[in-house]
C-alpha cells in the first residue's frame, strides 16, 4: 500500500512537473532576432521640465577660449525658433503701432511676405455660427468611423491575454462587419417575406488573411431551404448569401487579428425590417 502510494505520488509529480516545465515550451515564442530599442539619455531637468540657466555667449567663449564674435556666430547656428503662427501676427488691416526704432529682421520680413493677403471679404471671423454645431458636438472628433478605427488600430505585437480582450475585439470586428454590410447596400431584405419571425438566417463564412471568402458561404441548417413550404426561408437565406457575396472581400479587417475573424457567423434577421 505504502509502495503503491509512493509510486503514485512520484508518477503524478513527474506528470505535473513535466506539465509545468514542458507545456509553456509549446507556447513560448521563438527568438526572432533582437529588437533595436533606441535609448535616449536625458537630463533630469528635461524630465522635470526645470531648465538649467542658459549660459551667456561671453561665458561660453571664456570657458572654451573663443572670441565673443565666434561665440555669437555659434549662437546664430543654433536651430531657429519655431515659426510664428500667422494668427499671432498683426493682420495687415489692423493698425499695429509701427516700431521705427527697431527694423524687422530678415527672418521676420520673409515670414510677413509669406502671409497671404487677406481682403476684408474673406477676413476671418472670430465667431463662426456655422461651426457652432461642430463646437458643441465633439462626438465626430472623439469617435471616428468604426471601420477606420479598426483599420488604423495598431495591434502590433499585442498578445491575446484574456477572454475579456477577445470579447472586446470580437465585438469591435462584429460591429465593423455589420456597418460595412449596411453601408455598402449589400443586404436587400426579401420583400415578399411572410412570417418574418422564422426567417432568421445564419451564414457561416471562412476568410483568408486578405479578407477574401474561402469557398462559398454556408447556410447553417441549409436542409430547411429545400423543404416544401419553406420558400420564404429559402428566399431569406438566398438574400443573405447574396449579401455576403456582394460585400466580399472584407479587406478592412485587421490582419494581425486574423485568428479571430477567420471563421465568422453572420446572422441576418429581417424581423425588425418587416415588422418594425
Amino acid at each position: 500500500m505504502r509502495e503503491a502510494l509512493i509510486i503514485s505520488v512520484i508518477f503524478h509529480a513527474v506528470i505535473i512537473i513535466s506539465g509545468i516545465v514542458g507545456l509553456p515550451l509549446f507556447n513560448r515564442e521563438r527568438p526572432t532576432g533582437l529588437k533595436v530599442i533606441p535609448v535616449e539619455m536625458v537630463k533630469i531637468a528635461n524630465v522635470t521640465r526645470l531648465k538649467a540657466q542658459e549660459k551667456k555667449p561671453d561665458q561660453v567663449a571664456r570657458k572654451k577660449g573663443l572670441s565673443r564674435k565666434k561665440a555669437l556666430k555659434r549662437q546664430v547656428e543654433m536651430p531657429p525658433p519655431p515659426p510664428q503662427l500667422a494668427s499671432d501676427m498683426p493682420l495687415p488691416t489692423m493698425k499695429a503701432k509701427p516700431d521705427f526704432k527697431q527694423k524687422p529682421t530678415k527672418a521676420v520680413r520673409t515670414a510677413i511676405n509669406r502671409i497671404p493677403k487677406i481682403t476684408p471679404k474673406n477676413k476671418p471671423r472670430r465667431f463662426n455660427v456655422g461651426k457652432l454645431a461642430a463646437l458643441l458636438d465633439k462626438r465626430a472628433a472623439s469617435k471616428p468611423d468604426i471601420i477606420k478605427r479598426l483599420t488604423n488600430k495598431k495591434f502590433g505585437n499585442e498578445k491575446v491575454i484574456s477572454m475579456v480582450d477577445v470579447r472586446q475585439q470580437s465585438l469591435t470586428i462584429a460591429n465593423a462587419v455589420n456597418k460595412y454590410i449596411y453601408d455598402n447596400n449589400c443586404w436587400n431584405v426579401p420583400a415578399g417575406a411572410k412570417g418574418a419571425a422564422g426567417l432568421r438566417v445564419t451564414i457561416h463564412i471562412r476568410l483568408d488573411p486578405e479578407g477574401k471568402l474561402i469557398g462559398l458561404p454556408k447556410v447553417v441548417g441549409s436542409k430547411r431551404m429545400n423543404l416544401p413550404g419553406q420558400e420564404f426561408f429559402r428566399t431569406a437565406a438566398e438574400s443573405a448569401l447574396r449579401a455576403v457575396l456582394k460585400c466580399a472581400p472584407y479587406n478592412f479587417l485587421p490582419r494581425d487579428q486574423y485568428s479571430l475573424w477567420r471563421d465568422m457567423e453572420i446572422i441576418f434577421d429581417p424581423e425588425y425590417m418587416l415588422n418594425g
Partner: protein
Amino acid sequence: MELHVRLVKIWIIFVGVMLVSMVQAVTIANARIVVDINRGHANPLPIAVANLLGDENNIISGGSVNDYGKRISLVVKADLVRSGLFRTVASSAFIKSGNERENLLNPKFDNWKAIGAQALMNGSISVQEDGRLKVEFRLWDVLAGRQMTGFRYFTSPKNWRRIAHLIADAIYQRLTGESGYFDTRIVYVSESGPATHKIKRLAIMDQDGYNHEFLTDGKNLVLTPRFSPTAQEITYLSYNNNNPRVYLYNIDSGKQEILGDFPGMTFAPRFSPDGNKVIMSQAYKGNSDIYVMELTTRKITRLTRNSAIDTSPSYSPDSRYITFNSDRGGSQQIYVMDADGKNIRRISFGKGRYGTPVWSPRGDLIAFTRQYKGKFYIGVMRPDGSGERLLSESYFEEGPTWSPNGRVIMFFRQQPYDKNGRGGETHLWTVDLTGYNEREVITPLEASDPAWSPLIR
C-alpha cells in the same frame, strides 16, 4: 500520513489550475465572431433579362422567331418592373463576349457582376414541326454562379404574351418566395358616354391591360363583377328591365346563367374561397342584411338580422370568418363575424367612414376604403383591427381587389370635376403593400369596379 494529505492537496490545486488554463486556452482558440444584422435595405433587385435567342431567318405569322423572343423578354421585364421589387439592367450595358448560344448554359458571371446584375434570365425560342413555339428559359444567381430555376413551354404563337407572364411568375416566385400574379386577368366595368347617361359594359383584360375584350354589349347596366377564386367564372349584377339579377358567367365557355331572382335589391355578390357559395347583401323593405347562397342547392341563408345597413361581405381565405361594413354603431364601420353569422365584432375605430372590406388571399390583412374629411383612402388593417395603414389617397377612390398573392391592391379612382363640369374620369390603379409603388392600369375607356382573377390554370 500528513505528508500524503499535503501532497494530494497540492496535486488537486495543480490539476485544477491546469484544467482552468487549458479550458480558457481552448475557448479563446475556438472563439468565433458572431455578427448580428437586423438592418438592411428594401431596394429593387437588379436583374438582367436577356432576349430569348431565336432564328432571325425563320419567319412565322407576326414576325421572325427571334422577334417573338424579344417581345417575350420585353413583357417579362415590364411585369417585373411593375411589381416594384425588381430593377432591370439596361440591355445596352450587357457585355457581349463569346458565342451567345454557348453562353446560354454557361453564362460569364463576371460580366454580369460587372454591370451590377444579381440575377440573370436567358433562354431560347424555336418553332416545332407542328407550328407551336418552344420557349425555354433559365434563371441564374449571378453572385453564387449557379442556376436557380428553368422551365420549358410549348404554345401556339398567339399565346406568346401568356408565356411571358408565366416566365415572369416563375422568376418572381423563385426570387421572392411567394407566388406571382402576372398570369392573371382583370374583369371590370367599362364606362363611356356622358356622366348622366353612362354606358356600362363588362370587360376583361390581362393584368397589364393587354388582350382587352368586352363581355356585355352595354344595353343593361352591370355592377360589381367578382371572380371565382377557383375557376374562370365571374358573378355580376345586371339590371334587365329594371329587375336586378345576379348572373354567373363562365369566361372559358362563354356560358351565362342566372344565379337567382331575389326580392328587393341585391348588392356585391362575392364567392366563398372554395367557390361553392356566393355571399351578398340584400335590401328588403328598406333593410339591408347579409345572405349566403349554396351554388349547388341554391339554398339561401340569412346571416345578419339588424335594422342597420349591412353590406360588402367578404370571406376570410379559410372560410371561417366574414368581414362586412355596417352602420349599426352610428357610422359606417368594418365588422367581422363567424361564417355562421355569430360573434359579430367591430374592428375599425378610426375617424371617418370605413367601407368595402376585402379579405386578403393571404389572410393576414383586410383592405378597405376610408372616407375622412372630404378625401378617400385605400388602406389595410389586420383582421383584429390593429396595424391600420393607408396606402393611397385621392378625391375619390374605392373598390379594392387583391392580387392572388395578396401583395398588390387594384382599385378605381375618379378625378375631380373642374368649374366647367369637365373631368370626373374614372380609371384603374394599383398600389402595393408598401404604398410607394402606385401605377395606373391603362384601359381603352373609363373603368371602375375591378376584380382580380386567380392565377390562370
